[in-house]
């Protein structure tokens, strides 16, 4: 289009001639004529036909196109792109673990690789055709001849371009006349203005500018700050018609969206908060006075948090483990006054289970407790010995099970100590289930009994054997 401009300005009066165009009624005549023109040595020729005429390439001397090679390259590009994309995205950049299958290129990559090969090739075939044919070309001198409108209907045209190096206006005309065309016209320059009409340009400009408005608004919003809430085009699940905790409601008379428990019901997990088996004390016997409410709160929630106050009281309570338990030591008042369970649960002590539970308690005690408290429960475990040998001044010795204060504790309190921890000792609730904790209590009670037993505790028929034993620890 633009290449014609200088020519046009040179010859303002006479339109520039681009060559000769001969018209034929059927393709056979065209082929004969085309061969004649080719044999005369012209190469800047073309034929215009309503359909691809078989043999015209040979008749005009048109070389085969390189399009297939371009498409082949595009196909390989598509294949490699697809394989690299799948390898990199799923095997390198964001690894997907799917059934322990290998990363990278697997048989599962075949479908996408195939489709992209086709996609790249097909689009290259199309756009390659457009490119090689130098389309789109809307202004073309061949259109100046009104007869040329029938080229897409039923007419066949042969064209010799003036750009041919052997071109001579008269001789080409003579040659083409010799082929008995239906008409023979000179192809003249297109006189219609090559620029687009102003309204179309303005309209297109307006359309483009209007189309930019939404993008501009979005860009402006992204770059600026606003005190208004975010504008939600789609709500997704951000706003749901539901009440959250601590919100008010008009549905209930008390205006609370959180509902109190319905009388006579037990909620999930509530059993462990109410049954003595899980607590070591009976919450139903808690008196309603303020002091015990506070105690209850402290005992259930803050036993570990009260570590700061614990060492002080524990230090007073504690006695060195190596030294024999001080007899008749005045135990400080227990920190907790709760309605302790004073009997082991029935399921622990019933005759059929007690043997197994004792063994279970021994195993668990030696696993979890003995490290600090020692196998005998004197508070002389390995951890204590090691800490003591390091002579760290702040080491707080573990409590002996055999001091008066502990010996007189109800079983519920021992259970509670295991469950909630005491002083420096952590809670063992997450390591030991309630049954195991009760089994440990059972075992601890047995330990205490054995370490503080006198001869009356030994069955009558075994006493003599015991008294003859020289190394037996003399009891008080």
């Amino acid at each position: 289009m633009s290449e014609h401009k200088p020519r046009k300005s040179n010859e303002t009066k006479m339109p520039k001639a681009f060559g000769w165009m001969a018209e034929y009624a059927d393709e056979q005549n065209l082929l004969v004529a085309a061969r004649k023109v080719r044999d005369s040595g012209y190469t800047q020729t073309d034929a215009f036909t309503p359909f691809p005429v078989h043999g015209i390439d040979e008749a005009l001397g048109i070389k085969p196109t390189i399009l297939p090679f371009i498409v082949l390259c595009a196909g390989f590009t598509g294949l490699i792109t697809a394989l690299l994309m799948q390898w990199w995205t799923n095997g390198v950049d964001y690894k997907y673990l799917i059934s322990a299958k290998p990363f990278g290129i697997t048989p599962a990559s075949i479908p996408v690789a195939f489709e992209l090969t086709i996609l790249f090739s097909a689009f290259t075939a199309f756009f390659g055709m457009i490119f090689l044919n130098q389309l789109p070309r809307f202004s073309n001198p061949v259109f100046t001849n009104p007869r040329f409108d029938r080229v897409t209907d039923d007419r066949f045209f042969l064209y010799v371009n003036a750009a041919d190096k052997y071109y001579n206006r008269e001789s080409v005309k003579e040659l083409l006349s010799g082929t008995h065309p239906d008409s023979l016209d000179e192809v003249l320059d297109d006189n219609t203005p090559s620029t687009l009409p102003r309204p179309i340009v303005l309209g297109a400009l307006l359309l483009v500018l209007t189309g930019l408005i939404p993008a501009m608004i979005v860009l402006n919003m992204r770059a600026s700050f606003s005190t208004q809430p975010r504008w939600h085009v789609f709500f997704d699940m951000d706003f749901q018609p539901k009440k959250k905790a601590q919100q008010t409601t008009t549905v209930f008379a008390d205006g609370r969206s959180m509902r109190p428990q319905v009388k006579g019901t037990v909620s999930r997990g509530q059993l462990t908060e109410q049954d003595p088996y899980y607590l070591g004390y009976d919450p139903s016997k808690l008196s309603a006075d303020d002091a015990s409410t506070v105690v209850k709160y402290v005992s259930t929630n803050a036993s570990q948090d009260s570590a700061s106050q614990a060492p002080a009281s524990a230090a007073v309570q504690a006695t060195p483990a190596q030294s024999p338990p001080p007899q008749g030591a005045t135990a400080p008042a227990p920190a907790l006054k709760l309605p302790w369970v004073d009997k082991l649960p029935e399921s622990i002590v019933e005759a059929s289970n007690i043997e197994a539970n004792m063994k279970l308690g021994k195993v668990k005690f030696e696993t979890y407790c003995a490290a600090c408290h020692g196998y005998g429960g004197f508070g002389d475990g390995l951890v204590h010995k090691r800490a003591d040998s390091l002579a760290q001044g702040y080491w707080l010795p573990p409590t002996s099970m055999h001091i008066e204060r502990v010996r007189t504790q109800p079983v519920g309190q021992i259970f509670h100590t295991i469950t909630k921890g005491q002083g420096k000792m952590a809670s063992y609730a997450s390591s030991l289930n309630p049954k195991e904790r009760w089994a440990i209590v059972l075992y601890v009670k047995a330990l205490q009994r054995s370490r503080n037993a006198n001869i009356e505790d030994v069955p009558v028929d075994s006493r003599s054997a015991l008294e003859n034993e020289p190394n037996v620890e003399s009891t008080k």
Partner: protein
Amino acid sequence: MNRVNMATVASNYNPREIDNTADVPGRRAQLVTGNQTYSSITDMVCRVAEDPQPLLWYVLFGFSSLTAVMFLSLIGYLILNGVGIWGNMNPVFWAWPIVNFVFWVGIAHAGTLISAILFLFRQNWRTSINRASEAMTIFAVVCAGIYPGIHVGRAWLAFWLLPYPSLNLWMWPQFRSPLLWDVFAVGTYASTSLVFWYMGMIPDIATYRDRSKSPLRRMVYGLLCLGWTGSSRHWLVYEKAYTLLAALAAPLVLSVHTVVSFDFAVSQVAGWHTTIFPPYFVAGAIFSGFAMVVTLLVPSRAIYKLENLITLRHLENMNKIILATGTLVGLAYATEAYIAWYSMNQYEGFTFLNRQFGPYWWAYWTMVSCNVISPQLFWFKKLRTSLFWMVVICVFVNIGMWFERFVITVTSLSRDFLPSSWGYFRPTMYDGLMLFGSFGIFMSLYLLFCRFLPIIAMSEVKGILSIENHAAHAHDDSHGQSH
């Protein structure tokens, strides 16, 4: 040559149906009837868009565009309310939307099959029907593409299907999922078919341009045809590109429904997890696509008086393909059932008995009678050359193919491995209206296509006519050109 014929035929159009289905041994049957010339073909095809449309067109377009508007409104309603308006419910979450998707993708197969595979096999009769069926392909893909797009729930995020690193997670799609393969397969198919269709139309749009009286029409068609001149140098590249596209589209068309079948076959649901699915789906797709082409072309050729271009022989050929693919589909059903028994897999066995005699027995037997039994009627020449019966059978075939996808999708999901999760799928009103509405989109696009674009590949028909004439010419008197 044929100057006399040209004049007479072009002016004296004979609308009488010419039966060219008889085979004379040693002679090729004519592809176009009525002694056509190049200009008479141009006239016949261009008249479709140039003449005022018949009243029927306006009635049909009014109805189908209203249906399409209803469909689009329902999509809006769906986006506002969520996919809960459909009947999709545990355990059948792949219900009608996926059934409709597979149904439309299947229909989309005929166009490219006719354009590409029949082109590669040099089946010249394809030239009269390929354009309309390619258009049908595009429109069916449009309908098909809508369903997965809105079935994802948050349709405004459907672009997450594309391979891009998501904004906040920098996470890529999972390329080992058949659902992603589907995105690539259907996407490639849609875009390649569009390119194929458009490229095929360029010379014919140029014809429309050159016949246009109004400058606006001339400009629009001129822009659309990219300034096509019919230059032989252009034709050479064009034909090469067309052949390449055909060669590329032929395996593509087979791959698309293969990948769609992977959506099912790669899973482990009984009744889906079978290796027969790819060929079975492809045969079914060609089957339903051809049935749709016949259903559309029979009225189109009657309304636009194209009986001499889309002859009875064309329709008969298509009916033969329907018969062949319908029998293939029947064979696939039988093979599936046989393997369900032969594999001794109790889940497969149960699934097939459940399909046939379970709560969806009606869907299964509708499918079998429409897909296996009804095309068998095409063994009778009287039926496959009767316009009425071929339309009836083809409508039945499409009903049956919809039910096939329903049977596959719904029966397998509604009763899977865990009997406690069994359920019965019930569609809602919106399911039904949105299936119906998709036909509105499809028909509106097809009617607009008839109104504005060349519905028959004129240049290809002329090319075939030229070869035929030339062959006849060379036979009659042996002064044929040497080349």
